[in-house]
């Protein structure tokens, strides 16, 4: 913790970075995102099992980008990112939203975070993405802190849920999702927290023509959730922020995870893992399966 604070203070003092996007502790088992621009504020920065937010979402915000632009040069932006958040950053770099040279990634050896604020850190309360996590060390970073620790063991209930759904009939699944989507109030919190939902104008806000039925009746909720999941397929890095933010507790990661499984199964692709691999969307292989086509 001391290292992290010293490191960022030094960077801010030297004037190499415009700001640090980080976490600050607000109570014992709760943190919140903070943007530090004053070196003196670096002492608030923390990193622990309660740093739930994926801060990559802030990298594309216009107001934060504006902090970096000065008359004569562009300053870097520092971000504290869990190894899984680095996947989002990789995806953002691949999608040209930020340039690698413009950011300073401070990452950590991570052994998981809790599923929600206020929970004790143990196997029962592990966030579901941490259960299957294979990157306890960040794939890309400029500075790394923290020691390697064992992740508590837990069972992959999300996958079990997907398998359970897949064994149902279409009708049953349709009814299941109808029930889940029924609670959607179109607040778009899922969109707001998603690092990859950086569009200046979301497709759902496009009114002429009306792409997605904007009222929150059943069919409108279907179209929004289908399109959201589709737009994130092969892009979503699985941070799970959408589901955490959803006030109606819609299991959005089920859809995201199912699409990620498809990307892995049919194209051996996992999003946000490598800056060198071309993105799955936007590339093709002549030998891709032709099974779908008559």
């Amino acid at each position, binding site marked *: 913790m001391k290292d992290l604070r010293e490191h960022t203070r030094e960077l801010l003092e030297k004037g190499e970075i415009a700001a640090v996007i980080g976490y600050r502790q607000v109570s014992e088992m709760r943190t919140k995102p903070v943007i530090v621009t004053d070196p003196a504020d670096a002492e608030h920065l923390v990193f622990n099992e309660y740093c739930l937010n994926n801060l990559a979402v802030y990298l594309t915000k216009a107001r934060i980008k504006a902090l970096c632009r000065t008359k004569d040069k562009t300053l870097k932006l520092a971000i504290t990112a869990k190894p899984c958040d680095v996947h989002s950053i990789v995806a953002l770099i691949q999608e040209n939203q930020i340039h690698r040279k413009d950011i300073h990634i401070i990452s950590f050896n991570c052994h998981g975070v809790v599923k929600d604020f206020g929970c004790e850190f143990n196997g029962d309360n592990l966030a579901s993405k941490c259960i299957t996590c294979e990157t306890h060390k960040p794939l890309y970073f400029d500075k790394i802190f923290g020691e390697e620790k064992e992740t508590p063991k837990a069972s992959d209930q999300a996958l079990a849920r997907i398998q359970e759904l897949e064994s149902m009939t279409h*009708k*049953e699944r*349709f009814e299941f999702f*109808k029930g889940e989507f029924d609670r959607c109030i179109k607040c778009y919190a899922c969109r707001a927290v998603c690092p990859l939902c950086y569009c200046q104008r979301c497709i759902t806000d496009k009114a002429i023509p009306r792409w997605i039925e904007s009222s929150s009746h059943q*069919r409108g909720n*279907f179209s929004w959730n289908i399109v959201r999941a589709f737009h994130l397929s092969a892009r979503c890095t699985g941070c799970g922020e959408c589901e955490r933010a959803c006030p109606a507790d819609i299991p959005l990661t089920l*859809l995201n995870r199912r699409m990620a499984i498809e*990307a892995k199964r049919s194209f051996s692709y996992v999003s946000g893992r490598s800056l060198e691999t071309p993105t799955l969307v936007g590339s093709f292989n002549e030998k891709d399966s032709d099974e779908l*086509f008559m």
Partner: protein
Amino acid sequence: MDKQKWEPKIVAFVCNWCTYTGADLAGTSRMKYPANTKMIRVMCSGSIDPVFILKAFERGADGVLISGCHPNDCHYNAGNFHARRRWDFFHELLDFIGIEKGRLQFSWISASEGKKFADVISKVTKDIKALGPFTDYQKMNSEFTAFFPEETAEDHEVLNKVEEIV
């Protein structure tokens, strides 16, 4: 609606160069196929947005067919390769959400495959008939939702009047 009389409504999004031309050939060769399918011509199968399919379902389509040039035969070299990846995901997604795979079908039909075009349309029509009306989707909202601000429900009803004229 009388189940006996129910005829499926099918939309085909087809590329200008291969499938549309293949359909022209089916016509020139006087091949017969059911009249349930209406075609929307686009330049390339790569330009078909999955939302089009949802919109078609909203407007009462019981099934959708997407068709373009065979791989390596694309007028634009690679449009269909991109389309193939896109549809793979969208199809899996619809399936997972509970929409039968048969509602959305895909084919490659070249400009010279008039016979194949007729066969595919017949097959899709048969499949959709077997699946029955797609009321699951349509019934979720009984209200008319306009695509454009000036569009009204009455505009849409005009077709029923035409039926009477015919």
